């Protein structure tokens, strides 16, 4: 029988070396996160593969954009004009409310909330990984994306950035098993923590006392605690509350408001430019 390797170590010793190397990588990266700083370099290195993989989809999109009919365009245009009128009507009231709110906050000596800078990003790929819910977007450190930056869509919070490369970055979705987000109930300001369930369209609300005032249909918004997500953005709506006295806490499930299964355009919320001290003036 011809040996597989003409020179070098045997198959078994190669296996040992590689298995030990893999386990060392797993422990150092998976449990202690030692490679997180180099991660962005590594991801930049393999991003050509991502671009090639998303090429067919973007080509199809481009060609379908090209052959769209005029009637469709007119219909879409009319719809958009109607939506814009409605939104502008709301916006008129919003401006006056904003000014009023600012005045009231000044009277209370509370800091005025400033508008956050926003970046629009487009979805590139959804991960082929049943164990963690992540998506890839087409903005990276060159566009000023940073780690743990909050990401929203037009309905609510989508997740946060976990991995930034030069031209792409990875978003961890709110429903991922390793994700949790501090929230409050819009109706009564009860503070809670909503953690991901691993299923795309479900969150678990943890540690809810049996006596807590929480009901189906309550809307959860970000509480601003934890300093990652800005305050007041909608996160989820309570789907079910089960109060089993045999359990220490009530079992509360929520459905994310962001349409995590049909993401297309995402909004990245930037940091506030003004530092905390100067805002009180």
């Amino acid at each position, binding site marked *: *029988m011809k040996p*597989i*390797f*003409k020179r070098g170590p045997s*198959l078994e010793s*190669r*296996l040992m070396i*590689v*298995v030990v*190397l*893999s*386990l*060392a*990588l*797993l422990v150092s*990266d*998976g*449990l202690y996160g030692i*490679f997180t700083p180099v*991660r962005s370099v*590594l*991801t930049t*290195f*393999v991003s050509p*593969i*991502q671009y*090639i*993989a*998303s090429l*067919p*989809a973007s080509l199809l999109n481009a060609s379908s954009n090209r052959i769209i009919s005029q009637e469709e365009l007119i219909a879409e245009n009319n719809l958009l004009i109607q939506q814009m009128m409605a939104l502008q009507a709301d916006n008129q009231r919003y401006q006056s409310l904003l000014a009023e709110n600012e005045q009231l906050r000044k009277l209370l000596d509370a800091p005025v909330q400033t508008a956050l800078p926003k970046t629009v990003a487009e979805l*590139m*790929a*959804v*991960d*082929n*990984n*049943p*164990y*963690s819910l*992540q998506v890839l977007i087409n903005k990276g450190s060159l566009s000023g994306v940073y780690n743990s930056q909050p990401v929203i869509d037009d309905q609510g919070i989508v997740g946060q950035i*976990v*991995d930034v490369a030069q031209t792409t970055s*990875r978003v961890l979705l709110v429903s991922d*098993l*390793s994700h949790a987000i501090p929230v409050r109930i819009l109706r009564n300001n009860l503070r809670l923590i909503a953690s991901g369930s*691993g299923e795309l369209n479900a969150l678990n609300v943890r540690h809810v006392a049996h006596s807590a005032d929480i009901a189906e249909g309550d809307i959860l918004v970000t509480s601003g605690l934890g300093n990652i997500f800005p305050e007041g953005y909608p996160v989820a709506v309570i789907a079910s509350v089960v109060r089993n006295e045999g359990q220490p806490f009530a079992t509360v499930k929520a459905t994310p408001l962001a349409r995590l*299964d049909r993401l297309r355009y995402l909004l990245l919320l930037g940091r506030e430019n003004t530092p905390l001290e100067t805002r009180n003036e």
Partner: protein
Amino acid sequence: MNKRYVIYMTLFIALVLEVLPMPLNLVVYRPEWLLLVLIYWNIALPQRVNIGIAFICGIILDILLGNSLGLNSLALVISVYISSLHYQRLRNYSIWQQMVILGLLCALYNLIIFWLQHWLTDVLFQFTYFWPILTTVFLWPWLFWLLRKIRRQLDLK
């Protein structure tokens, strides 16, 4: 002339196919392209494609998928080790026998990944994790035919 780059090209294409965007309801059926291509080359040319290449491809896949480094590489290395222990026998099997063996290897590959993930973050067992085994097994005859054609045409050794 060195035609070995063709092997690396096929591995590269397999990596692209692993991350190709797919409709959400089809993603759970995505076959393990990289495992298939690695095992084919391992059976056909064990002196060219072996544990080392499997390890490097696994690391690249881990970076692409945002996993902890070493997860896919460990699972791939163990699967490729088993196939390279029996490469002479596997070559002589009929396509049906190869499909059965491949199904077992793919199940092992998926199980190792599930165990490691369970150890790192407490993921729960869902049956959908094992749909790729079926698609992978039914892809094997076509891929085997295609890659053998490539290998014979270019006379890769």
